[in-house]
């Protein structure tokens, strides 16, 4: 096996010709499956990551996203399926010959090495010359802005500094693909949000193909060009953040994407032959565009996010029956939150600061409306 990486000319195996679709595909996973004992951790995962793209693998813990990342890096072997890196079939290539750069959740900095030694570790492994290594370390230090810390040991660094060093160490080897494994989750909230923005700008500036694993929707949205949502070892939906947020294709996606009101109901037929949804709490509205699998009589779940709901004192097209009652008004700074009760359902409504609590107070009878395209109706299994 020759030395890895962009420093040597990559092997061009015959199979590479089957990748006619993309010279610009840096990573291709085809039908990747993984078992841990009896647990089916990954089920037939297929995805392409294009050059310079940042893909966020998003999902709850245990959904298989870290397993997928470890398979890309070569730390785990898939039980089925193929992994291609830069057109090279790498199933049988050990991690140290793959040229991926991984940033670990707890950084995994070598505690017995200084910052400089940590960053140059992968460069020494590639047998680069002392001058090149020196140059590369300087570049990384200024790129991630931690001048003056080069001779420190990791134990003498703050969490944020460790984070930067870990990213620098992974970038120093000029990886084909950068892998971030919950890389920001050990930071506290403010620092994490700062780093999300900084990292997002940095990765775009460098134009480096990146896969990040996170359970944090905001992190995925801040960093990711595309999101791949995972559940129970399966990639459920792939798309740009807007697509995932506005056009969720399943109950799981809507529920994972944040606080939406969930209303149960049924599909009914009106006189004109149009299908409508009637919720248990009394809302009636046409089946939203883009919904599928909603035959008459089907039990369904309708999701509407709190920020998409509007309140009014008059009955609305959606809500013409018995009014709801405001039971709690909470001022949250940029927005206000209303808790309203309607028959047995509790519904959250959030209005941004401008709309204020003005006009609506606790005890008021109100009616609700929402833009139809902001309501997601899925079959209730």
């Amino acid at each position, binding site marked *: 096996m020759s030395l890895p990486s962009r420093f040597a000319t990559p092997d061009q195996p015959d199979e590479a010709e089957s990748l006619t679709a993309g010279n610009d595909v840096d990573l291709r996973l085809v039908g990747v499956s993984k078992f841990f004992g009896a647990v089916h951790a990954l089920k037939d995962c297929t995805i392409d990551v294009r050059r310079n793209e940042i893909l966020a693998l998003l999902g709850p813990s245990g959904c298989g996203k870290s397993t997928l990342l470890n398979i890309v890096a070569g730390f785990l072997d898939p039980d089925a399926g193929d992994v291609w890196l830069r057109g090279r079939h790498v199933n049988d290539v050990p*991690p140290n010959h793959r040229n991926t*750069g991984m940033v*670990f959740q*707890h950084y995994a900095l070598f505690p017995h090495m200084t910052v400089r030694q940590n960053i140059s570790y992968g460069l020494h492994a590639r047998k680069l010359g002392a001058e090149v290594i020196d140059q590369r370390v300087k570049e990384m230090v200024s790129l991630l802005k931690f001048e003056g810390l080069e001779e420190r040991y990791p*134990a003498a660094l703050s969490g944020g500094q460790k984070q930067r060093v870990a990213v620098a160490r992974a970038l120093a080897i000029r990886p084909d693909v950068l892998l971030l494994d919950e890389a920001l989750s050990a930071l506290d909230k403010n620092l994490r949000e700062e780093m999300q923005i900084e990292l997002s700008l940095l990765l775009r500036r460098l134009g480096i193909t990146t896969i990040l694993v996170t359970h944090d929707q905001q992190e995925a949205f801040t960093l990711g060009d595309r999101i791949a949502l995972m559940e129970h070892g399966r990639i459920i939906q792939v798309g740009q953040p807007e697509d995932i947020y506005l056009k969720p294709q399943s109950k799981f996606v809507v529920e994972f994407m944040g606080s939406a009101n969930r209303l149960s109901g049924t599909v009914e037929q009106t006189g004109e032959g149009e299908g409508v949804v009637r919720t248990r709490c009394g809302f009636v509205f046409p089946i939203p565009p883009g919904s599928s699998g909603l035959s008459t009589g089907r039990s369904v779940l309708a999701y509407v996010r709190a920020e998409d709901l509007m309140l009014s004192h008059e009955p609305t097209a959606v809500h013409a029956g018995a009014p709801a009652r405001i039971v709690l008004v909470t001022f949250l700074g940029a927005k206000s939150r209303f808790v309203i009760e309607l028959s047995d359902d509790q519904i959250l409504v959030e209005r941004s600061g401008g709309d204020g609590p003005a006009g609506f107070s606790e005890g008021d009878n109100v009616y609700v409306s929402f833009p139809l395209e902001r309501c997601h109706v899925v079959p209730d299994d």
Partner: protein
Amino acid sequence: MTERSPAAAPAPDPDADPAAGQVAGGRGKAAQARRLHPWLWLLPALALLIPFFVMPLGILARNSVYRDDPTALMVPDFTIDNYVRMLTDPYYLDVFTNSLWIAFLVGIIALFVSYPFAYYVVRWARRSRKLLIWAIYMPLIVSVIVRVFGWIVITADSGLINNLLVGVGFIDRPLQILYAVSGMMIGLTHRYLPLMVLPLVNAIAKIDPALLTASAGLGAGRFRTFALVIVPLSLPGIVVGFQLVFAGVLSDYVLPNLMGTTRFRMLAPAIYDEAIGNVSWASAASMAVIMIVIVVAVLLITNLAFRRYAPWARTL
């Protein structure tokens, strides 16, 4: 990674707070009793250590500057003659260099035997782990005398090893293993092996597996990872293990006596002979003091060197 050992951070005792003592100063005796309270915990240990360890050491140091007398056993005096003789007379110098050399050698051999074993136990052993650890503890449980008899059976001229080698035709005459340096070293290595293995197991087990993954991810092969990550990070265990084995071998009395040879004198038996055989209590005492100084010096030097060249180790 930055957690301290429990010993380094004694739990704060509210009763022992000096400020609290001052505030309660007006109430005199009660406050004083409360200040003394933590020290009471040390009482049993002190009651044992002071009369049976500290005082004998003091007497030993005192004896070492007395003068041996053919008729009066020891004559109170203050002379460094004993020390001068120990450090100039070839017989005594041999004793010291022999012992230092063997202690160093056994330390190194034990390290090279123990390291792969400890590494296997930590990294690979699953079901066999308990058994292997138990096998290492065993020697600490079985009396060394019992084990010596076992080794005698194996290493004697007509013992297992020699019978086998002669039987196969490898050698014509039995090798001198028992009652020679080699037999003694086999015994010493086995006796002190646990003191090397256990700190190593402890140190290797502390290495975060993510570091090994990270090393591979950065392009390092197995050998590089072992040499640059695993070995340096197990250095604390290597140092402690070596210190324990070194100090143990240097002061061992049983194995040089039962498996070694009088043609290669070792320190502890030599001190015994000096005191009992030659009835020279003062020179025996000076030998003992020199031995203690050597052990303490080796411990201090290795500790200082370790702190100097591995400043990160305190943060592990």
